[in-house]
Every structure is written in C-alpha cells, then in structure tokens.
C-alpha cells in the first residue's frame, strides 16, 4: 500500500474544458495495470458484451456507468473471473489472466449484496481471505483490527455478529474484507445502491478518501451517475455492451459524444440542427449568426446543440445571448442551494434552467420570459 497517492484537482464547474484537459493524465506515474482487448461475451446468441477495449492505470478510480442491461455487470464478472469470455483478452500488468480461474486471480470484488458470511463475526469475515491463505491467527487478528481502523469502525466490532451491524457498517466490513485480500484491483458492483440517500453520500466520499489513502486501483460499477462523478477519475458510459464514451467525469459531463451520453449524464437541453439551406439554425431557438460563425459552426452542421441547465439563464428585458428563445415559466423547483425553472417555449419544448439560489427571480404564472445561453457554454454533438 505504498503506491503514491494520485493527484487530484478541486472540482468545480467554472471552467469545465480546462479542467477536463488537466485531468486527462490521471496519474503522475501512470502505467497500465489492466488491459482489456476486444472482450466479447454472448449468452445463447444474446450479445451481452460487444467488443470492449479498456486500459486502466495503476491507482486509478474508474467508474463504469450504464443503464441496467448495458453489460456492465457482465464486464465486471468477466474481469474477476466469474464468467468466461466468448473471445478477447484480459491482461493484468504483464500477464494474461483471462483463462485464470476466479480463485487464482489477484482481484477482489465487493458484491452488490455484500456477500458477508452471516455465520461469522465481523472480525472473522475480515480475516477470511487471510485464513484461506493460511495466515497465522494472531497476525490475522492484528490485520483485521488495523482494517477496522481504516474503515472507521470501532475495534470492539471485531466480535460483533453481522446481523448486529447496520447497513452502513456492513458496507465498511465488506470493504475491510476486500482490503484484507489486498487485491491488485478492487472491484465494486453497486454496493451502495441499497442504502438511503444521506448514508450513500457519506460513504461515497469515504470511499474516495479511502482510494486516495490506499492508492489501490478501484473499478466501480453503478447506474448512478452522481455516484460515479463524486468518486471517480474517469467514467466509462456503457450502452448495449459497448463503451459509448470513456473519459474524465468533467469531459463526459460537458462534452458528451452522443445524445445518449448527454441525456444519461443528467438533465440537459438539446436542440437539433435544422440543417436546411445555407444558414445555421436549430429547432426551438434562434442563434446569433455572428456568434455561430465565431464558434466555427458551418451551414450543413448536423447534430445537436447542448446546454446544461446551469448554462442557461433567464434573460432580463433587453438582455441578449448567443442563443435565445421566449417562453412561459411553467414551474419552479427549489433544490436547496440551487433553483430550477421549467420554461415552455412556443413550440412546446421545455427548457430547464438552473440558477444558484441567490439569483432566484420572481415570476407570475403565464408570464413571458426570455431564456438564453452563450455558445462558449454550450456543446455541439456532431452526428456520427
């Protein structure tokens, strides 16, 4: 556990593109620990995994996100050796491991159900991988107590029964057990999904902190994008057995490669290019030609113009923006530190606007309101 802690930059939405660039080389002494080459898996003619290629750096925290049925669970099961691939290769550092059985691979997984042994105490659960390896009982116990410390559980939990632990405590026990195994790569299969919101938020941050302290490589599967964004260095978005996009969280959030990723990565306003004639125009909105030209938008562009709700603002009378439209405020949602407005345009399209709470506006039902955003805060999704 003496691998240098990876370098991370503070998050913030101020300058997305610059941060995305800065985050790209994720680690100082990055060298691939895992290499997946053209991995395929079919079940009775159904293609669960369709040619996945992936390189993971030593010490990286990678999140694999996708809707259910996208193949993320199949991928992780192949990587830890619980399923056999139809074709392709898996390399761990310099050795090929795709034909090594699960119990001989130096990887470990935290299961969705946690898979804690109900007939063993907390301490016995944590010691389990060491017991299997034939480690001396006294050493085992010492290591288990150390790990209890690491996952912030009191020492007297050693003798507790699993049934006496709360959901959050069980998460920590499962994590400690996986760390006792001391794997090259630690896999997570949505272990937080069953917890309530507050506890989940807390554990997400702890997990990220633990990743930094241990310097281990974490590969985390989740269907929750927020979870992935909070914790990981890079995010892979999966769709029908393939990686739709792979990159730093900021990049995927700000510069999605497809409508699917844009919509999957949270709330978004998308305007399709009309692409007819010699002008640049999009559905529902008017675009300032000069700004469009400056942005490099040429007539004939086909794809979508994307603006996240926090990039759109409510325009004061007479105020201008590169992209504008007029609509009627339909509803307002308070999100704590943020406030969201749903503005229905004349075409029926609903624009979501998100402001910080200080910028909250007063509005009347049915009141006409201008919405707009500048092109440097928007992203263009080129149609493939």
């Amino acid at each position: 556990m003496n691998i240098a802690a990876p370098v991370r930059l503070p998050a913030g939405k101020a300058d997305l593109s610059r941060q995305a660039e800065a985050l790209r080389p994720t680690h100082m002494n990055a060298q691939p620990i895992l290499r997946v080459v053209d991995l395929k898996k079919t079940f009775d003619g159904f293609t669960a995994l369709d040619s996945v290629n992936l390189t993971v750096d030593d010490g990286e925290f990678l999140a694999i996100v996708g809707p259910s049925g996208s193949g993320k669970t199949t991928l992780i099961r192949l990587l830890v050796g619980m399923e056999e691939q139809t074709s392709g290769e898996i390399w761990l550092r310099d050795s090929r491991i795709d034909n090594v059985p699960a119990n001989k691979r130096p990887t470990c997984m935290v299961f969705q159900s946690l898979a804690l042994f109900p007939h063993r105490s907390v301490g016995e659960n944590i010691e389990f991988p060491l017991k299997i390896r034939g480690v001396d009982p006294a050493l085992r116990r010492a290591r288990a107590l150390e790990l209890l410390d690491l996952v912030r559980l009191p020492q007297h939990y050693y003798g507790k029964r699993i049934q006496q632990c709360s959901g959050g405590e069980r998460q920590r026990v499962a994590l400690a057990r996986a760390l006792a195994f001391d794997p090259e790569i630690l896999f997570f299969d949505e272990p937080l999904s069953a917890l309530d919101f507050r506890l989940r938020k807390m554990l997400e941050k702890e997990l990220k902190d633990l990743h930094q302290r241990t310097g281990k490589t974490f590969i985390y599967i989740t269907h929750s994008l927020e979870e992935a964004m909070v914790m990981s260095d890079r995010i892979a978005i999966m769709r029908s057995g393939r990686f739709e996009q792979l990159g730093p969280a900021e990049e995927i959030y700000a510069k999605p490669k497809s409508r699917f990723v844009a919509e999957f990565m949270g709330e978004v306003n998308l305007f399709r290019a009309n692409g007819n004639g010699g002008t640049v125009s999009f559905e529902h909105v008017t675009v300032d030609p000069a700004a469009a030209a400056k942005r490099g938008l040429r007539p004939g562009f086909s794809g979508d113009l994307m603006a996240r709700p926090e990039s759109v603002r409510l325009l004061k009378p007479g105020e201008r923006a590169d992209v504008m439209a007029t609509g009627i405020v339909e509803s307002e949602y308070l999100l704590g530190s943020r406030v969201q407005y749903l503005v229905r345009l004349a075409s029926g399209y609903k624009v979501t606007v998100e402001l910080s709470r200080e910028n909250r506006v007063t509005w009347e039902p049915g009141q006409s309101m201008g919405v707009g955003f500048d092109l440097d805060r928007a992203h263009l999704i080129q149609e493939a």
Partner: protein
Amino acid sequence: MHPSNVGRIGLYLYGILILAFLYLPLVAIGFASVSTSRYLSFPIRQYTTQWYAQALESGTVSDLLWISLQVAAIVTVISMVLGFFGALAFARYQWRYRRLYQKLILLPIFFPQSVLGLALLMWFNAVGITPTWHTAIIAHLVWIAPIATLIIAIRAYSFDPALEEAARDMGCSTWQILREVTLPLLMPGVVAAGLFSFLLSWGNFPLSLFTTGADLTLPEWLYAKMVSGYSPLVPTVGMLSVAASIVLVAIALALPPLINRFTRNSSD
C-alpha cells in the same frame, strides 16, 4: 363478562381439548405400563415398575432396541449426506434436468409406504438378497432421504449464491467453499433433517414390516404382540420408544443455544 374474554376462554378450552385429544392416548399407555394388571383398566389398583425391570433385563427387548437404534442411526447419517448434496442439486444449482429431478425426488414420499415396502421386498427377492435389518436400511432410505433432501432444500433456497462466489473470489477452492461457507450455512437444515430422519426411521412400521426379514424392529414387535400373544411388556416397550424420541428431540432443541454460547465465548 366482556365478550372478548368469553372468546378468549373459548379459545383456551379449544386448545386444551386438542392437546388432550393428542396426548391422552399416550398418557393412557403410560399408566398401563406402570399398572400391575395385565390389561389397562381404571382406576389402577396398584402401581409397579416391574414391567420396566423385566423389559430392561429381557434379551428380546434389548435386541429390539439395538436393531431399531442401528437402523435409525445409519439411516440418519446416510440421509444427512444424501440430503445435503441432493438439496444443493435441488435448490442451489441450475442444471438441465433439475425440474425432472425435483419431481422424481418427491415421488417416493407420496407412494403408500406398504406398496413401497412390498415392491422393495419383491425386488430384494428377485436379486437374491435375503431381507434382514440391513435391507430395511435401504427401504427406509428410499422414503426418508427425499424428506431429508426437502428439509435441507428449504434452507438452501434462502442461500445467497453470492456468498459462494465471494468465497471463490477470495481464493477458496471448491472444497474450501463447501467447508467454509456452504456446509456451515446449511448446517441448521442438516441437523433438522437428521432429527427427522432418525424419528421417521425409529417409528417406521410399514417399510420395516416388509423388509426386515426375520429381524424385528420395535414397532414391528409391538404390532406382533398385539396381533398374537399380548404381553404386559407392550405398553412398557412403547413408552421406552417414546422416551427415546423425547430425549433425542430435547437434545436437538438444547443444542443450538449451547453451540451459540460456545462459539461466542471462543470468539471474544
């Protein structure tokens, strides 16, 4: 009186009646076994323990007890082993002919036991095996092993397959998974199955009647004595048999708390 109280008293009376219906016959045999008279009649004029003394001294009775005990013990051990692996195939693993296997396993339980006993006897004759209490073990197993399988399968159904996967992921071989995870988790089911196997074999009459040959088990002897040549030892031997069952059940009930206390002490 409040109407709900009437209802409650009625319910208690009903419960007592049911219990009396279940246990009075047994109590009657208990009295018969300590009465000096040859046949049971109330009131009992004089109490005695002479029948118990006779029974315990009698070579026949101790032979009976010994044969019944051997049959039941061997049936219990084999049923537990067969039931354990059978239950894994029944409830835990997905395989091609699982549904067919599940039905076939259940079938012997629904067979009338006397028909099963007769069929086995004919089969033993055809193969040329002379029936003794050894063959009775096989007959008992045909009927009891499926029951043991079912009891353990109930436990195996509630088993999270991820536990075995996690064990493998952490380096366990197949044998280690069995020893460290599967067996300890199914153990309560295995113990329950063992208890049932013993009691079902110990008290079994129809299968034993056809398949023990010249040997006699306890229930067979009781039946034989009732049909011809009643002996005052009949209620006594019957009570001894009931006592053995009660002792076994008591041990089984006392065991889990004892094991719990022991393991808790050792882990602290």
